[in-house]
């Protein structure tokens, strides 16, 4: 009897150990079911995994002076902003390219980098440096360009064309006849929509840039993946004299950028040390603090931010806001470092969702209608798929018009770097 019981116990123990091992290696649907059976209270109502709320993090500092809040808001800096830092070498390269072009050399410049590296800020700064000079035009592509007509209309308005044109070849002729000008194009990744018509549009844009290089200096800013796709299709490197690649900030650049913002902070900051919460008793004030300890805590905090964000500014600013707690009297802000975001929910996404993310990662934005054109499916189904990702806070959504199918979805900036790594490992971006 004893032997039988012992045997059964051993068998049960062995099975539990094996299941535990399997769960550790591959948490399957079966193991989740087992977990639910074992503890229904814990997993009975399974919450859908989602990312933290970016807007919610920013809302934590509501009540503080707007000037202070804007320092840590995720948006491009204007041309004269004193907060501009970390991109001095790229700005110098752009200015050199302008000088070379003025010396009658043909040129077009591509400004390439992932979301959040500061391409728009750099273009703003460049436009500001060129203030007072004639013939500087800014073009911002606000939406995905679907047809050649759409492209021509957008460019005609921004370039203030004197005559109406119906083809890019005519536009090129007009541009060649006019005064030499510098054209700064932002969000050029939106020129390539993966539909047969839009492929022709991207080709038309590249041919326009190539045909007018002697008379126009094109400075085209676009996302890294879109650049690669265009390069594979049309050999972009052959048409651009200079490609400036902007990676995320390195440690030194990141610290310099953040210190610039800390120096402009009008509210005293209190940094907690990076220690377990039960051991925290010491805080230090900054940035006006006059002791070394305050400076050291701020440095440690910035190091922690860099480690979490890997130099991705939107992510760093999210963490900053998430770790900020204003004093009830709003006289100071406590910065209490916490843990990073868990992106493991990406592993649960199905193939269709991953393809949609890859498209967004490459081109920045997408509507349900565009998604349905790219993936050749019903627009309603596309909207459901994009909405599901929006509910998980992987995407944010803006609805400029009343039409739901025209709502614009974008990848959450805090998630861009992680998405890039994941999609690259899945071989959906390359």
């Amino acid at each position: 009897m004893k032997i039988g019981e012992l045997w059964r116990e051993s068998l049960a123990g062995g099975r539990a150990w094996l299941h535990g091992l399997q769960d550790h290696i591959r948490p399957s649907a079966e193991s989740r079911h087992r977990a639910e059976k074992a503890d229904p209270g814990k997993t009975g109502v399974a919450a859908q995994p989602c990312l933290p709320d970016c807007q919610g993090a920013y809302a934590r500092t509501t009540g503080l002076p707007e000037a202070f809040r804007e320092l840590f808001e995720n948006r491009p800096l204007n041309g004269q902003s004193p907060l501009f830092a970390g991109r001095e070498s790229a700005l110098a390269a752009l200015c050199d390219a302008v000088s070379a072009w003025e010396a009658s050399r043909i040129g077009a410049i591509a400004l390439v980098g992932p979301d959040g590296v500061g391409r728009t800020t750099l273009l703003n700064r460049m436009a500001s440096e060129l203030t007072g000079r004639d013939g500087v035009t800014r073009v911002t592509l606000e939406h995905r360009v679907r047809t050649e007509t759409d492209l021509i209309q957008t460019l005609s308005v921004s370039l203030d064309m004197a005559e109406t044109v119906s083809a890019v070849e005519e536009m090129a002729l007009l541009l060649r006849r006019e005064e030499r000008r510098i054209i700064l194009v932002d969000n050029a990744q939106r020129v390539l929509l993966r539909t047969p018509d839009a492929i022709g549009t991207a080709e038309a844009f590249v041919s326009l840039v190539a045909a007018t290089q002697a008379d126009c200096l094109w400075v085209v800013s676009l996302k890294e993946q879109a650049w690669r796709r265009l390069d594979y299709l049309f050999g972009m490197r052959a048409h651009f004299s200079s490609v400036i690649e902007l990676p995320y900030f390195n440690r030194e650049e990141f610290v310099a950028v953040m210190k610039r913002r800390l120096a402009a902070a009008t509210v005293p900051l209190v940094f907690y040390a990076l220690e377990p919460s039960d051991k925290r008793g010491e805080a230090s004030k900054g940035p006006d603090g006059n002791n070394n300890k305050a400076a050291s805590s701020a440095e440690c905090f910035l190091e922690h931010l860099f480690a979490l964000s890997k130099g991705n500014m939107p992510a760093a600013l999210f963490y900053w806001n998430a770790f900020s707690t204003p004093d009830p009297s709003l006289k100071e802000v406590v910065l209490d470092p916490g843990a990073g975001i868990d992106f493991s929910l990406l592993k649960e996404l199905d193939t269709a969702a991953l393809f949609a993310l890859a498209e967004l990662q490459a081109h920045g934005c997408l509507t349900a209608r565009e998604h349905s054109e790219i993936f050749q499916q019903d627009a309603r189904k596309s909207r459901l798929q994009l909405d599901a990702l929006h509910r998980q806070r992987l995407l944010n959504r803006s609805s400029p018009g009343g039409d739901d199918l025209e709502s614009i979805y974008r990848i959450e900036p805090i998630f861009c770097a992680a998405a890039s790594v994941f999609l690259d490992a899945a071989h959906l971006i390359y």
Partner: protein
Amino acid sequence: MQTNLLNELVELFSAAHLIKIALVLAAAWGAARVLRLLLERLAQKFNRYRLQITGVFPVLRLAIWTGAVAVILFVILHPSKNVVLAVLASSGIAVGLAAQDLIRNVLAGIGMTFKPLFRVGDMVQIGEHYGEVAEVDLIVTNLRTFEDNVVAIPNAEVIKQPVSNANRGALVEMVVVEFVLPAGVPVQRVKSLAWRAAVSSPYTFLKKPIEVLVEDHFDYTFLSRFKVKAYVLDIRFERLMASDITERLKTLLHKERLLPGEYLRGTTLPQQS
């Protein structure tokens, strides 16, 4: 002499030895299983290197089982020369005759481990079967077809015939989409549409060249056969990509009234771009 041999044989297969052998075999089975789970997990995480990771498994599994057999023979049993000779003489011919197919398959499996014709994950054509290599063990190779059937092909059969491997360990492979149109269609225009259809498919791997070829074809009448050659970004999407390109191309041809029915009805020729 015979009594000694018998005693030795009985001692070799004593209860203690049998338990030890069972434990070693169980340990080898467990190790192979854990290894497989780990590699599957790793392949799932790094999809880009999926085929390389899963390709290592057959070699490691063979090493585990070889190690297990070696431990049983040389550590647990450790038979004398006389016993080995007696066992071989008495059972060798009988076992060899009874299990010749099995042995042939195992030998082919061992050969394929060291000189692989394909890896797990490759898209191969063996005989009349085309599909993804799902598993290669010592006896059979399992192919998963597009109809989601698993076809088990004995390893001896695999090495006996030509094997066509579409990707040879790479994640991308060329997909050819063919379509036939009346000989009079504007070739340049159709080629341009076919290229756009291929480029705009989300499954197309843009890093590799995309080509559209055309050749004459006769089937009761003169025709033009177009071949779109593009690479799919993951072999698992091969059929999806072919279907996607065909769908896009049909839409484009329909839009330009170039589909055979519409074109032959005498509609006006589209302008060459």
